[in-house]
């Protein structure tokens, strides 16, 4: 499938010492990685080649605090304000459509693409953001680029790329109740390590992947980059078409029929070969959690923190030592029962409606533990509106959680939402790097179910112990 999508977008073929030139179907833009690219265009007197293939939003440096009496979300950080204003100006000057802060379609860049029906199978999609891999859930070739490349795509709608290798990630069997897409991807990364996928595009396949909803597939593709892979893909199927149909930017009428016909031809042919393969069994997979300072430092929630002294490799031992010191954890410690200060449910990994429904399933009729801060941050204004229509906001509020405006929030801690030094958080986001959620903050990555279960007890909790299997199924 990767090969087909790649081949269909080659504008100029590459060679061993020459990158190919690829045509880009959709370019997503946000405030943090675009300013210098627009400046470059201005300096060189260039236009945006295809504003109709470009869409900008505001998500990273935007606050998620409640709206003022004027109905607007107040931006008090002067630097953030300047950055947002610059994006507004750039979009005006270059004719790029913009979903501005607080407007009905605004949200995290990787939530709004699929939600609007802009993300479609077989496309090439880029954004100055490494989690662009999310869009691969639709069978698109989607990856993050740097700001220089943002400039390239704005000006030419093309990108220089060397062809990556392919790795099959096969997840056999079925997930048990209480175990989610997030647990699959945390297990894959724990297996291969944070650099294991460098140079590869992952193709996720197998019974467990087929059984996932589009939102679950997005969660998995989202974190491909945490395994080092620029992109991850899932072959499109009826689940994919069903999800896209009727969305604002989905093809309509005859266009729809033609599109589906094209999409059906994308999946990998039987017997296709890959450069590498990883196999995982979903049947025996429990919920996962990270204990360290990169997403590869993950384990089954019932396991114990590994012991650096048992590692043979010196630099691996050093890295684990350093991670455990930062995290304030002891070797062989169990994380279950560990008190936390904050629970964060949000980010482009887990802030879609199904994630919020899962969290609400556990929090409904229960109360957040005393002294704990629980933030629920929808991925977009549309997700927020949908959740409110379903009454999920009331479930969260009544439990004692904060219900916030849409944005990246505490995933990246550059917008006012952050951990204090030394605080522990269970977070549904994708990165547990040192300081990622606030300087000195300590992150355990987990699924929305695990996060919600932890919210109720105030200590790291296996969701399967909070509610019965029937409720989780």
């Amino acid at each position, binding site marked *: 499938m990767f090969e087909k999508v790649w081949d269909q977008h080659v*504008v*100029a073929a590459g060679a061993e*010492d*020459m*990158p190919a*030139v690829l*045509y880009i*179907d959709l370019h997503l833009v946000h405030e*943090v*990685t675009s*300013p*210098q690219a627009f400046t470059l265009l201005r300096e*060189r007197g260039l236009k945006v*080649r295809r504003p109709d*293939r470009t*869409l900008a939003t505001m998500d990273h*440096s935007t606050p998620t605090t409640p709206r003022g009496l004027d109905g607007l979300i107040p931006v008090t*950080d002067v630097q953030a304000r*300047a950055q947002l204003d610059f994006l507004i100006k750039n979009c005006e000057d270059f004719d790029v*459509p913009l979903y501005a802060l607080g407007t009905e379609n605004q949200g995290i860049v990787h939530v709004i693409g699929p939600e609007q029906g*802009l993300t479609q199978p*077989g496309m090439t999609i880029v954004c*100055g*953001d*490494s989690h662009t891999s999310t869009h691969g859930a639709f069978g698109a070739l989607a990856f*993050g680029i*740097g*700001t*220089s*490349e943002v*400039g*390239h795509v704005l*000006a*030419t709608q*093309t990108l*220089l790329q060397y062809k990556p290798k392919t790795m099959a990630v096969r997840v056999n069997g079925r997930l048990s109740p209480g175990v989610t897409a997030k647990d699959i991807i945390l297990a894959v990364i724990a297996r291969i390590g*944070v*650099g294991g996928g*460098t140079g590869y595009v992952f193709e996720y396949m197998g019974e467990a992947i087929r059984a996932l909803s589009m939102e679950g597939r997005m969660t998995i593709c989202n974190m491909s980059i945490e395994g*080092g892979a620029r992109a991850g893909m899932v072959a499109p199927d009826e689940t994919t078409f069903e999800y896209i149909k009727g969305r*604002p930017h*989905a*093809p309509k009428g005859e*266009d729809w029929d*033609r*599109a589906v016909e*094209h999409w059906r031809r994308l999946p990998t042919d039987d017997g296709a070969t890959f450069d590498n393969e990883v196999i995982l069994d979903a049947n025996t997979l429990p919920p996962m959690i990270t204990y360290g300072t*990169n997403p590869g430092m993950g384990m089954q929630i019932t396991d114990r923190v590994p012991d650096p002294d048992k590692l043979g490799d010196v*630099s*691996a031992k050093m*890295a684990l030592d350093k991670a455990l010191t930062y995290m304030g954890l002891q070797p062989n410690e169990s994380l279950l029962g560990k008190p936390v200060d904050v629970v964060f449910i949000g980010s482009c990994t887990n802030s879609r409606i199904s994630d919020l429904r899962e969290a609400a399933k556990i929090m409904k009729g229960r109360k957040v533990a005393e002294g704990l801060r629980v933030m629920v941050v929808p991925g977009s204004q549309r997700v927020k509106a949908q959740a409110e229509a379903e009454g999920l906001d009331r479930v969260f509020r009544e439990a004692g959680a904060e219900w916030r405006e849409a944005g990246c929030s505490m995933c990246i*801690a*550059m917008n006012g939402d952050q951990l204090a030094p030394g605080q522990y958080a269970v977070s549904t986001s994708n*990165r547990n*790097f*040192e*300081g*990622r959620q606030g*300087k*000195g903050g300590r992150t355990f990555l987990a699924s929305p179910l695990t996060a919600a279960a932890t919210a109720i007890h105030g200590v790291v909790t296996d969701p399967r112990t909070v509610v019965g299997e029937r409720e989780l199924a």
Partner: protein
Amino acid sequence: MEPIRSVTGRLAPLPMNDIDTDQIIPARYLKVTDKHGLGAACFSDWRYAADGSPKPDFVLNMPQYQGAQILIGGHNFGCGSSREHAPWALMGAGFGAVVSTYFADIFRSNSLKNGLLPVIVDEETHKQLISLAQEDPNTQVHIDLEAQTLTLPDGRAVTFPIDGFSKHCLLNGVDQLGYLLSLDDKASAYEGANSARINTHAMMQG
């Protein structure tokens, strides 16, 4: 961009594995609209204590490593986000090259576009460079882009890989955007030949 032929300088050792871009430049410094002035924030959380004072035991604060032009990082250097602020910050902090056994994809590509050389060496050379830098901070090495070699003080030269296109661009100060712009005809031809498929993707006007 200025052509780059070589980097000669002293080494600063930071040999941890999986150094991610959030360490190289924490997100709170990304609220800028230009590329300059990020050097002081490079490795900020490792470099400064809570009160803002420099931590004396961090390599970039040690007097003997001031002015080092080559950073030695550990395996999988630059993993994490796509922020080009990472190479901008490293360059702002005075580095012209980073040496590692392995670089994360996007970091490597971003570095090459800005003239920060990502130099991949074998594990043994990597270890040797670290001990050299630790034993004698005045050790100088020479990186020759044209020859693709890194020369150690004992005269031993090891080769490193770099793709031909990036090398050409760096040596000649050619920027890649110029190259893409020169292919305008091809892009138009592609758009023409694929208009049905491209236009299946709904328009975003209005």
